[in-house]
């Protein structure tokens, strides 16, 4: 009976990287452990890059901005409290970096420079083409709408969370999402499956 209990316990133990595992890494990063930082970077590099790219709507910005995100992670590792999910904490930093970029650009009076330089050529299977169209459609959306649709439909965040992260009301978040979806659907036309 006792053996059976142990077996059940082992089976229910999650194998995937958990909050605890990330928490241990970030704790070591806070102590200046460069190897732990590299491990953390390797785990989440792709996530950060693509979230930044979708929020910023620009491949050109994404590379530099994701580096900035990681520099912030390194310098603010001490601020991570083990009680929250690491992915959520990371996402908050990404959103703040993107909002900071937007503020800097508004302050300088610069418009977003969108470019698809370096995009893979469109000789891809249907799913890849769809993905490419979606990414382009997102990038072409107005910035405010894009932020909401990426956070809601891609990241799965709720309106309350989005409102807190972007500093807007929940109603504004819903309204922007509705507008963004319609805009995106019109741009994509019949591309989606």
């Amino acid at each position, binding site marked *: 009976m006792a053996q059976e209990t142990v077996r059940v316990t082992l089976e229910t133990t999650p194998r995937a990287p958990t909050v605890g595992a990330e928490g241990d890494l970030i704790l070591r990063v806070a102590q200046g452990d460069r190897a732990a930082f590299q491990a953390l*970077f390797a785990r989440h590099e*792709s996530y950060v*890059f693509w979230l930044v790219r979708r929020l910023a709507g620009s491949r050109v910005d994404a590379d530099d901005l994701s*580096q900035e995100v990681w*520099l912030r992670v*390194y310098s603010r590792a001490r601020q991570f409290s083990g009680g929250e999910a690491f992915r959520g904490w990371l996402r908050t930093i990404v959103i703040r970096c993107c909002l900071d970029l937007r503020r800097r650009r508004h302050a300088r009076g610069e418009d977003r420079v969108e470019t698809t330089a370096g995009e893979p050529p469109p000789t891809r299977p249907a799913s890849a083409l769809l993905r490419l169209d979606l990414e382009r459609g997102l990038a072409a959306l107005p910035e405010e709408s894009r932020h909401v649709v990426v956070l809601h439909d891609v990241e799965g965040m709720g309106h309350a969370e989005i409102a807190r992260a972007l500093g807007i009301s929940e109603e504004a978040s819903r309204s922007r999402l*509705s507008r963004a979806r*319609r805009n995106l659907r019109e741009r*994509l036309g019949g591309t989606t499956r």
Partner: protein
Amino acid sequence: MTDCAFREQLSAYHDGDLAAAEAEQLREHVASAPACGCREELAALHTLVRDLGELAPGPVPAGGWERLSARLERRRAWRWEWMLPMAALLLLAVAILLFRTADRTTPEPGGAGSAAIRPAPRPAESEVPGISGVGPATGRPAVVVAGGSRTAARAIRPPRPRFQAATVKASLPPTRVPTDLIVAYGAEVEPIDRLLRALRRVSQEDGNHPRVPPGEPYDERGHEPQTDATLQGQIEALEALRADVLAELVMEAQARAAAPWK
């Protein structure tokens, strides 16, 4: 596709954010296959949201860690490049501050309107206003000039150890005075003489004497008014003080001559 009032609600309906009554109305509207195209649009919305939800991170540019690592190194190097000079500057500022603070403990020429000959181990007030203090060697009253001019104050900086023995001797009556007494008392006479010289020069240089308009507490340089009456009073008090010092010197010389064994 016509403009339909329900179109605005499709997104909220899809997310389940509509109130029950509104949701029911929209459901019935869509089920009726309207000509406005809401049905098709709702279906397209479902597809779009599903596709967006399935968007996974794609490939990332190569060499991300190397670039990040280089930036971290640059930032660390930048910190050191700035921290050392900043620390040096901070130390320099502290040193200057300490130096200036120490410098202010010595009398400022005309700064606060007063200057003192120090040290003054025993406080003793003179009867003349503006003159007070105790002499360094014998506890005799020394001089503190309140409201002195710049010239006078410059003259009463802390006394230098040397003094004019010949001046003291010349001031004494024809009495045999041991050299050690001349040295001891001379150290007190000399600053009095310097101050007297300065005060007399000020009283003679009428044009340099700062004048204060009637009723004004300070002159244009922020000094207390120095009237001729107070200046003359200070000169007379200093002369009396000088005479006292010399008289005491003579008395001590005579006492020593009478009882040389003491």
